[in-house]
Every structure is written in C-alpha cells, then in structure tokens.
C-alpha cells in the first residue's frame, strides 16, 4: 500500500466494540468514519439523522455514556468500549415485551412538538439526557427548559411546542416518582 506524503491515510481500519441501546455491537470501520455513519450505515440504526454534519444543528445527537454528543463530530473509534443510546433506545420494554415510550417521546406526541420529524431524534435524546440528569422531584424552571432545547435547530415547529413538551415530560417524570 502506498500513501502519498501530503495526504492522511484514509483507508486504515479498526474494529470498534460498543454497546448500543444496551446491545453489544462490533464493526470494523475505516478510522475516519464518524459515529453518525457507524450508527446509520454499519449498525443500521437510521433513527439518528444528520442535518448539517458540522455540529451546529443537533439532529444527530446521541448519548455516549449518558451525555448528549453530536455524533457527526465524533469518530467511530472514539466510542470504543462506550455505551451509546440513540433514539431507538429511548423506549423501554415492559414485562410483556411491549414498548413503553420515554416520557419525552410521549410528550412530543401529546404536545405536537414535531412536524417533519427530521430533527426530532436529536431533540428527544438531548432532552431525555437532560431530564434524566436532573432531580425529577424539582419542578422544572423556564431557564432549564430553554437550556435543554437551546442548542438544537428545528425549522418546522418554531419551538413553542417543543418547550411545552419538555414541561410536560418533566411533569410526567415528577409524577412517576
């Protein structure tokens, strides 16, 4: 194999082992592959969407070890050994194998917080991570709501109903304690 001196080597490969939505997964990928492509193309989890590919819009947000990250700005090899949660992993199974939606998913439907739905997975993951990291017993403040939705772009909804959904989900999580 020859590599020109002025170009980075792009075809080296690594095997990445990562837990995605609770399931151990493994994929051998070029080292330059970003996490969003690993999830979508190698692992078939197309719920994570890419809106800008430069880390601004937040559509591609997933949780890595519980923290929201922009999967278009993370290399696949960086999540070696980590635990990743995507929109597909927000709902949990009940005892009978049925699906119980995360409160924020329920809230998005109830509050009409999505239209085209393309940015929605990024919002859902970001908000779920934020709500899970806070004391659910505390009533959510407007500042917290603004903070949770403030880093993601949506071109359809004008955000009012997304903010409503955050309040709704926070209330559900408080009642559910």
């Amino acid at each position, binding site marked *: 194999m020859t590599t020109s001196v002025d170009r980075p080597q*792009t075809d080296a490969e690594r095997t990445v082992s990562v837990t995605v939505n609770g399931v151990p997964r493994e994929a051998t990928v070029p080292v330059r592959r970003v996490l969003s492509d690993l999830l979508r193309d190698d692992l078939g989890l197309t719920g994570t*969407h890419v809106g800008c590919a430069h880390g601004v819009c937040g559509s591609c947000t997933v949780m890595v070890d519980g923290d929201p990250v922009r999967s278009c700005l993370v290399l696949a090899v960086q999540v070696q050994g980590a635990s990743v949660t995507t929109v597909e992993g927000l709902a949990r199974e009940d005892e009978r194998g049925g699906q119980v939606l995360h409160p924020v998913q329920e809230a998005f439907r109830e509050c009409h917080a999505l239209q085209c739905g*393309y940015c929605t997975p990024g919002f859902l993951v970001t908000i779920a991570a934020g709500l899970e990291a806070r004391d659910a017993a505390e009533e959510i403040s407007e500042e917290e709501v603004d903070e949770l939705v403030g880093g993601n772009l949506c071109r359809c909804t004008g955000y009012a109903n997304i903010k409503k959904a955050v309040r709704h989900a926070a209330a559900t999580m408080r009642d559910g304690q």
Partner: protein
Amino acid sequence: MTTKLFGEPVRRREDARLITGKGRYLDDIGANALAAAFVRSPHAHARITGIDAEAALDVEGLVAIYTYEDLTGPMAEPLPVLIPHPQLHAPRTGYPLANGVVHHVGEPVVMVVATDRYVAEDAAERIVVTYEELPVVVGVDAAREARAAVHDDVPDNVAARHHQETGDVEAALAAAPHTLSFTQYIERSACMPLEGKGVHARWDADDASLRVYSSTQASTSVRAAIAAKLELSLDRVEVIAPDVGGGFGVKIVHPWPEELLVPMAAIRLGREVKWAEDRREHFIGSAHERQQRQEITVGYDDDGRVTALDVHVWHDNGAYTPYGIIVPIVTATQLVGPYALPVYRVVVESVYTNTVIVTPYRGAGRPQGCYAMERTMDRIADALGLDRAEVRRRNLITPDQFPYDHRLTFQDGRPVIYDSGDYPGLLDKLVALVGWDEAEALRADARARGKLLGVGMALYVEGTGPGPYEGGHVQVLGSGKVLVSTGLTSQGQGHETVFAQIVASELGVPIDDVEVHTGDTRRFAYAVGTFASRAAVMSGNAVALAARGVREKAIRIAAEVLEANPEDLEIDEGLVQVKGTPGASIPLRTVAVLSNPLRYAFDEAAKQATQFARAGSDDKPPVAPGDAPGLEHRDYYSPIRSTFASGAHAAVVEIDPQTWEIDVVRYAVVHDCGNVVNPMIVEGQVHGGVAQGVGGALYERMAYDGDGQLQNASFMDFLMPYASEVPDIVIDHQETPSPLNPLGIKGAGEAGVIPGTAAIASAIEDATGRRITSMPISPTELYDLMRDETAERTAASERTGAPA
C-alpha cells in the same frame, strides 16, 4: 355521529414512527447503494477549459465518473422551464452537468459514483477542473446596471418583464391630494429544511423498470420528468416521496440535476445509486428567495385612503429561471393585501445574477409584497400623523364587498377574486390581542428600564389552494381497513392525520381504521404537488369527495342487503344502519366483501361473496353495467380559482441602545384559514411560519461577496433561529369559510411567515424613529443607522421620544 372528527385537535398518526426512530427518510433507504458525489463549480461565472479525472481513477472503490460529455439525448439538453410564461421572454436553465459555462458557485460539473460517500468524495477531490473566469453579477442593483451579463445572449440581464395595471395610474397619481415615493430592499434567505434533498434509484433490469425515491414535493412530476429525460415509458418509472425532512418550497423545484443523474447512473451501472445532499451543497446547489428592490409611489387623500399605487419591483431570480416568474407574480398580485386600491400598477423586472436560483420559499413572494404594501401604510400614517392601525382600517375591503375582484391575474393564470374574509374583524382582534392602544404605557415602562420599545403590525391576504387539481382514492377492504391515497406529498404538515380525519368524518368510520398514503405514484399517479398552501384545500376536498363516493356505493349495496330505502341508511362507527332501527345494520367491511362478487373463497370473509353464497337475480350480471367491483372511489377536486386566507400580525420589539440588540418581546397573530380541520396542526404551522418570519427579519441573510462566493454557507454562519430567538406567540382565530370548496377550507401552511418582516420593520422604526428601508436588519446595521446623521427620521419620532 360519534365519528365526527373534522375540527378536532386529533393527535398525529405520523408521530408513532417518527418519535421512535422508525421514520424512513431518503438517506435511510438503500443501505447497499453506491454513493454519488459532485464536483461543483467554485466560480460564479466561468468557462470550463478542461476536466482532468486522471488522478481520480486509481481511487479504490471508484465506480464511474460522468461529465456533460457523457450525457446523451434529452439529458444533453437544458433542464426544463417548468412554468413558462409569455412575459418570461428570456428563460434560461442549466444542464444536468455544466455544458461549457458555469453561472453560479455550486453548479454541478462532474458526478462521481463510488462504493460509499467517503470514497466518492475522495475521487471528486482529485478531479481537476480548469476554468477561465468571466465577469460576475451579484445583487439586484448590479444586475440592473448590466455592466456585465450573466448570460451572453441576455445583455440587460432581464429575464422577464411582468406588468399588470387596473387603471390609469399616472392620472390617478396626478390627481392625488398627496403622494410619496420611496425605495426599499429585502434580502435573500432560504428554506433550509433540516433534511437536504436526496435521490435513490434502483433499476430492475429483468423488469426494465425504475424505482426512484426522492425527497421531493412533487413526485408525480418528477416521475414524468425522469421518463422524458431518460427516454423511458412512463409506466416503467415509479417515484416515491418517503418521509421528507421539511421542504418549505425548495423541494417543489424539479427535476433537480441530481434527480435525473442518479437514475441515469443506476440504469447505466445496473446498481442502486444514492445521493444525499450535504449542508454546504444545499446552500450553494439548491435555491434561495426573497431578494428584491422595490420602488413605490403612492397617492392618498387627507384621510389616508390610498387613491393610486404604482410599484416597480426588481426581482433577483439568480442564475436560471426553471420555476419561471411565479415568485415575482405572487409578489405583484398579493401585494394588494386586504386593501381596496382604486388604481394599481405593478411592473416587475426579473433579473439574472450569478447566484443560486431563486424559487419559492414558504410565502413565495408574499413576504415581499406584504413588506411593500404594509410599509406604504406606515409611511402614509407617518406623513399624516395618524395611527397606523387607523390608516389600515380606512383602506380595508369590507365584509360586504365579497367576492372582491382586484382585476389582477394570479400565479395560476386565474383572476384575483377574493372569495371571503373579514379584514376589519382581523384588525380589531389584533389590536386587542397585542394591546396596540397601550403601546405608550409599554414604551414608558421600557424607557424606565433603559430600553427602546416599538410596536408594528402587518396584514396580509394569501391566495391558497391553486389548481389545476388534486385527486383522492378511498377503498374499504374486507378487513374494514380504509385505504386513502392522494398524489401530493408530505413534508411534515400532518397530512396522514388531516386526511384521515376528513375521510373518517365523511365515511363514518373510526379514524384508527383509516390509513393514508401520499406522494407515491404507484398508488396515485395524477397529482400536482405540495406548494402554495394547497394540500388541505386540494387533496382534503378530493379525499372528501372520494369518501362521499364510497359512502354512496356502500349505502346502495347495504340497502339491497337490508332491503331498506337508501335514504333511511347512515354509516356510523363503520356500521351501515337504518336510522332509528337498532339491529338493522351491516358492517361496512361486510359491504366491502359483498361489493366484489367472487368465485374463490380465499378467506373466511370472502365466502360471503362467492357465487353460491349470494342470492342474485338470474337476469342481471353480477357486476351491473356501469358499476365496478370493490368498495372504492376515485375523485378529483379542481377549483375554479384560489381561495384567499388572511391574517394580521403584530410585533413588539425592545432594543438595547447600548448593543442595538433587537428583541421581539411579544408577537400576536390573528389567523383566518376558513374552516379548520385540525386546530392543533394549524397552530403548529403558524408557530413554524412565525419563527421563519422572525429569522428572515432579523437573522437570515445569504451573504454573497462581489465574486459570487456565498460567505456563510453553513449553519455556523447562516443564522437560523434557535429557540432563544423565537418569541412567545399569542394566537387568535377567525373562521370565514370559503364558498369555493365543499369543506369550506383555505390553506394555512405558509401564512405564518408572510407578515414577519413588515411587522418587525415597522416596530423597529417605531422604536428608533429611523426609517427602515432594508431588511433583514442586524444590530450592527441598526447601530450604523443610528449614527448616520443623514438617516431619515420619522415624523412620529417627535412624539414617541425616539433617540435623537
């Protein structure tokens, strides 16, 4: 009836899949497809002198490289002028791949196909295209001056001169007690859906057929265009719009070069090929809108009533005119708004520039028209020392004047005749909702906090639901499931829900039994597309008519079975029953089974329809002449002309006189789209539109430099509103049904964006006392304006205590 759902805030049926990651957008399709990438022009205007692909050939995984030289037949011809118009005297369109000359940065020059997108980009990067640069025209003023030509054979850069007038404007202006003239500008923004465009194509060589998925607003016409350009019989091509991640107009344009090139490659290679547009490509390779220079002269009397209006619009149409002059015609004809103008003349000159093409973006010329008219009202009020609301009120068309004929020709070639409305009602509601008459108190309160406060308003009328037609198909299956299809596409408007509500209501079935499909040419081949706030009006009425056809047939069949008079039957909760006679009923699903006389009992239900199970007359055929098997109906809605929705917005802005940051602190909307199918969805549309309106007024601007380079082609640099930039919105409704269609509805999709720029400009002017003549406006520009001693001050600034 228990199944009445029309008008209810029914939760969306789309959401279950979209909130769980099970939506299927373009790039989610075709996991094994080859990937296309494009080499695009880095120059705004240049002659291609050479293309050297040699260095790309040794990239492992490269499959094919295409340039203009590889295009044959209709593919080697220019792209279609989609909407020809007699006044578009010099239409120009590009080629699928550049043929000799490029006319804007981003124009596709070479297509590369490879095993994946990374490899395709590697190969594209190694292809060397050499250019001889040509003079560049950027901006509407440079186009007017025509020191250089965008197209050699159009030396004045004018693509079209559009002209409409309703009387002798010169005479009316000469006779007017007062006149005033001014020039103002509005800049470029763009749709910017979170999902860019995208195309996936699969050629089935055994079947000699092509299936294309496209993130489009017009799948039926994309299909026709592909068939024509690739010389395929229409029946060999199917086009499907999957889940589409927003459109806002940019995806109504077609065929995009990629929509032809990707299928072409799929056929030639016998492999699935896919292209998903990245964000930079979307900025430089799709479409923008809004840039205009507007020269306005208005005549008015002592009371502020307009006696004549004369408008000259210079409209920047970018490098090509594939979508004709729809946007400037909409500006020209919707400019008149809710006002009675005795005499109106408009001249539009649509000019070429070396920039991305200009095609409809939500509002599609209306925001510019509204900006022209509403700022005129503000000027009249200022000149006469009258309240801005009062001047508007005096000019409004009154409810007893409908139908109101403006004597203009709309974008659909039909007359601008307003069907219904109550504009004084809108204004009254708006004044109350925003607290217009308490502005002085708000201003004083803001001043006490060291802020400048201003209020502004803008009214609009929006022609919605233009023809020529849409169709609907409704079919009841033996399982009781009701399949509904319509050809137009969805980009997040909730069509699956709204059309299900309409069909469930019309047919009398539970909404859970109804399944709606849109934008799939396999299911419905005749359609126009989703634009101009037309989906609910057009397909809503079409599916309603189709459902009524099914209902009529169901009642006819049930009447025979129940030996009842059809007039005595009703359908409720999926049961056809004799009114007032409990027990005398038959499930609709059974009617569906009986509607199709069978020989073979493929399942338990089918037994009822087989030849030895049904008693029938020996004298009649099982399917009567003129009848058809199955419980289904297809129908079309084709309106005589557009239906006109309306609304009024008001903005309250606070400005920090240290930073000149502009904060919209209150935003009020009064909205009238006739009968509302789903108020939750309509409010959602309004919210989204207002956010785009605020973005267009304060943040979004395509920043081209003099060389035609787009300086802010990323989400980092092009400022779309986040939640922090969108004000809280208060909404009041008014429902003036349309007399033109069976459901009495008017379109709602685009309304929210239309008056934003006008209302916010008015509010900033009110707060600062400085004439605002160019939008959008940034804090820096406002700072410069405040420091500019030659800047025009409003007369009202004496009264409002605006800064000196």
